């Protein structure tokens, strides 16, 4: 864990976003306290607190005074729509560039996508969560 080049608190925040997107953490679920997080992953409590503060800023988590941190209503949908915007620029662009280097045509790519639609790419309405499919 925490092997990336980004600051550790970014990596923690990203891991929590990932759990919300996958449904492992649901709206209104309580997330671990900074103390639990720190002792579980053996990281400085301030690092965990920074990650939580960032997610509160992004309105992914919210704080209930004296109780703890919870997943904000609508967090999963908001994350999904942000990720969709970034998906083409950050994920697909490099793939398309690599494909061009390898001499693959657009139809090679679309054929591949079409044949793999059942395993990877959903053909259902884009607003459904994985469980709803």
């Amino acid at each position: 864990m925490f092997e990336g080049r980004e600051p550790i608190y970014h990596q923690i925040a990203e891991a929590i976003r990932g759990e919300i997107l996958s449904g492992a953490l649901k709206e209104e679920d309580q997330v671990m306290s900074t103390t639990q997080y720190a002792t579980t992953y053996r990281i400085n409590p301030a690092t965990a607190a920074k990650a939580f503060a960032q997610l509160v800023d992004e309105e992914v988590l919210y704080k209930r005074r004296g109780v703890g941190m919870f997943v904000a209503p609508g967090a999963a949908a908001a994350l999904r729509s942000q990720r969709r915007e970034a998906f083409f620029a950050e994920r697909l662009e490099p793939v398309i560039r690599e494909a061009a280097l390898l001499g693959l045509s657009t139809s090679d790519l679309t054929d591949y996508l079409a044949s793999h639609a059942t395993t990877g790419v959903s053909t259902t309405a884009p607003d459904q969560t994985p469980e709803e499919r």
Partner: protein
Amino acid sequence: MTGYRLHTDNLTVSYGKTTALTGINLDLAPDRIHGLLGRNGAGKTTLMSVLASLRRGQGTVRVEGQDPFENEAIMQNVCLIRESGDLLLDEKLTTNLSFLEDARPRFDRTYAESLMATFRLDPAKKPQALSRGQASAFGAIVGLASRAPLTMFDEVHLGMDAPARQRFYHEVLHDFAEHPRTIVLSSHLISEIAHMLETVTILHEGRLLLSNEADDLHVSGATLTGAAEVVDRHATGQQVVGTQDLGPTRQVTVFGDLDEAALAAAERDGLTVGAVPLQDLFIHLTDTDRAEEAS
């Protein structure tokens, strides 16, 4: 806020003709876990001894704004745990705890007893009857339960086996989160404690090599791996602190104010850009023999 702020200005410490520390300028903020790293003989223990008022040097030392030397108000709130331990050797552990309870204003006896159970220590034993691992554990218990505004652990967990160290790290983080104070951790087991540290201070041959936020240090290092000539092209202009060749593949470790755009360009050219774990960075910066070979 309960932790002490630490400051030294041009601190130099000599033992006879040997200079252990030279011109150390250091600022450590209160209520954080600071890592103090260095190779054997780098001056870590000397620095902690000065902060614990066991020793005096030239220059300025301030613990919470005061000179700690022979300063009782400060000394009772500063706890330095050394592997050898500073205990009443002829008294049972429980008697040692009673003595500490009197000497340390914030000592938590209940917490100490629960840690004795956690580390499976028999309170009726005397310090000299303890194994190395048990002695280390008792030192850790004293350090934790003292809840001193400045607590320094000097290689205290070196004698512990892996599960005991795990418990020690857990307790440090848990108790620090519940009772913030200034903690200085000194260890050679860098990879085990790296993410526990909020700041990292490295001493090398008696001098201060760096003192940084752990987060800043983490983003200051990168490895570039790939075909040697591509790696060299992208490493030009960056501070290279390590190079490793595996056949036609080269890995360089760059450190400093990195140009993120240049790293992104390196990735586009097919290089793998990776993080530099603190332990690797430490080795690159303090392995002087290797550094001289490389230059």
